[in-house]
């Protein structure tokens, strides 16, 4: 496979305009993955990413791991504080009693 050497692959956050003409590399994919999930890539970059994913199982694995991470974060949600709520509730009731 002929590889276009393109810009240095040193892992900094890739601006879409820095991409080489022909392809997205794995190192670029891991920087673009968030924008990819948000649906915010330029159409051209989007198709380059999708082409890369057709050929690269490892990046598909990486993407799935990222999705699993996000799904796991969702499960952490739902913090409550009944004590704080109850002390404010007491004030609310007192005011209602006064104002009624």
């Amino acid at each position, binding site marked *: 496979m002929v590889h276009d050497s393109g810009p240095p*692959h040193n892992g900094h956050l890739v601006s879409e305009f820095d991409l080489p003409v022909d392809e997205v590399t794995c190192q670029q994919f891991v*920087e673009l993955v968030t924008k990819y999930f948000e649906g915010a890539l330029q159409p051209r970059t989007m198709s380059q990413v999708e082409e890369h994913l057709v050929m690269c199982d490892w990046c598909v694995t990486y993407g799935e791991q990222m999705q699993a991470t996000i799904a796991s974060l969702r499960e952490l949600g739902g913090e409550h504080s009944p004590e704080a709520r109850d002390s404010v509730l007491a004030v609310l009731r007192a005011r209602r009693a006064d104002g009624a």
Partner: protein
Amino acid sequence: MQPEPAVAPARMAFSDEQTLAALRAGDERTFRELFARSYPMMKRVARAHVASDAVAEEIVQETWMAIVTGIDRFEGRSALGTWVFSILTNQAKSHSARERRAVPFSCVAPSDAEEPAVDPDRFQKDDDAWPGHWATPPRPWQKPERRLLSLEARDRLKAAVAQLPDRQRMIVGLRDIDGHSADEVCDLLGLSQENQRVLLHRGRSRLRAVLEEEYLDAADV
């Protein structure tokens, strides 16, 4: 693999028109629902200003006290959510001034410092056969059968979230844990989409790396 569909947006709790009337009337059910729905978001924003969870919780409680005692004076010239949020940030700022925090909240934008999503050594270098392609690729995770995460992985993830840099923790929390949309978060914090996304990207990348370590450790047992 399709791009992940947006997490169902949690409505910004104060945007309901009937909320104001209900709060003025001292309606308990409205208060309880509103409190529960907004608590994670309010605590997360407060926590970005101050050094501990305990202080963030105090700030949220003080804010609610101010809402409940001040609701009659609220004239409705701004949106209710805006008013609440300004009380929250004022309370948080006066706490943080007392703590003398080093980083002012106005700097919510991500730092320019580079933070690669994955250790660059895991990719082939310019003089290797396939520059930029994986040298040490990710290995599929062995997940427990019916849960998304093992209990150990869940604990490790929680700890890792707590250790994220403040701004990344706040954005990951609001977007991925609490489920707010990108637009809601950008609106709430006055951030550009791009800045919000950079913080989200960095936070998520760190957390994926933590889970990867956890799964590799587990596989070696």
